């Protein structure tokens, strides 16, 4: 009852392994952490203060707390990574050529780095304004 696959085929199969599983795991695990981070963020900014949305002073007051600052920075990093990995997955499902996918990877990576840098800069600037 033994089946056969040729040695050459086995070698070709083994060579197919790539990083896509790691990308998916990063997206899944970041998503699970984002449940806490985004949940906290939504509740804090929409539902706690009177009137719902925080005004300028209330935002500064919130971000001045070092724990909150850390959570918001982590939120930006994981949120942007999760979103852009998701965009990559959607693009991959449309079967782009290898060249197109490489360009998409670079664009998403660059966009992500800029977005995260801007988000962190914003958080630091607000914390400084809060004194």
């Amino acid at each position, binding site marked *: 009852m033994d089946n056969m696959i*040729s040695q*050459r*085929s086995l070698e*070709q*199969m083994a060579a197919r392994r790539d990083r896509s599983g790691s990308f*998916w*795991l990063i997206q*899944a*695990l970041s*998503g*699970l952490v*984002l*449940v806490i981070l*985004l*949940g906290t963020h*939504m509740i804090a900014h*929409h*539902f706690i203060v*009177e*009137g*719902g*949305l925080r*005004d*300028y*002073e209330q*935002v500064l007051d919130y971000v001045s707390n070092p724990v909150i600052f850390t959570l918001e920075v982590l939120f*930006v990093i994981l*949120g*942007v990574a999760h*979103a*852009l990995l*998701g*965009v990559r997955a*959607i693009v991959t*499902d*449309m*079967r782009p050529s290898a060249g197109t996918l490489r360009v998409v990877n670079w664009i998403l990576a660059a966009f992500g780095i800029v*977005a995260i840098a*801007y*988000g962190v800069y*914003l958080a630091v*600037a*607000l914390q400084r304004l809060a004194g």
Partner: protein
Amino acid sequence: MPDIQPTTDPARPKSSLRAWFDVRGRSISTLAFALNRLTAIGLTVYLFLHLAVLSLLLRGPEGWDAFLSIAKSPLFLTLDVVLLFGVVYHMFNGIRVALVGMGVAHRQQKGLFYGLVGIGLILFVVGAILIYTA
């Protein structure tokens, strides 16, 4: 072992949007996938718009509080409720996709959908009421 070749069928050109979002006759899990993908696209667009709008905070209270007066208008509150639905659905179905996708509780994936998204919908209704009444 040759590469899997794309099958070109001139009679039926590929349409990604139809493949993902035409849910007629499909099961609840495919509906779940379609809505997850739709909310993902919406939330991604929102995320970057939101990051851009937050730059108003750097203009001081005048810049931010002026924006707040628009953000508390009925139209914006309704958009907020739509955003809340997207967040809640994507979050709770996302928990299911993450767990099932790692092979955890995958035989109970349908129950997980009803349970988790059910909890999410309750939270959504509560949140929507709070948004409108705050």
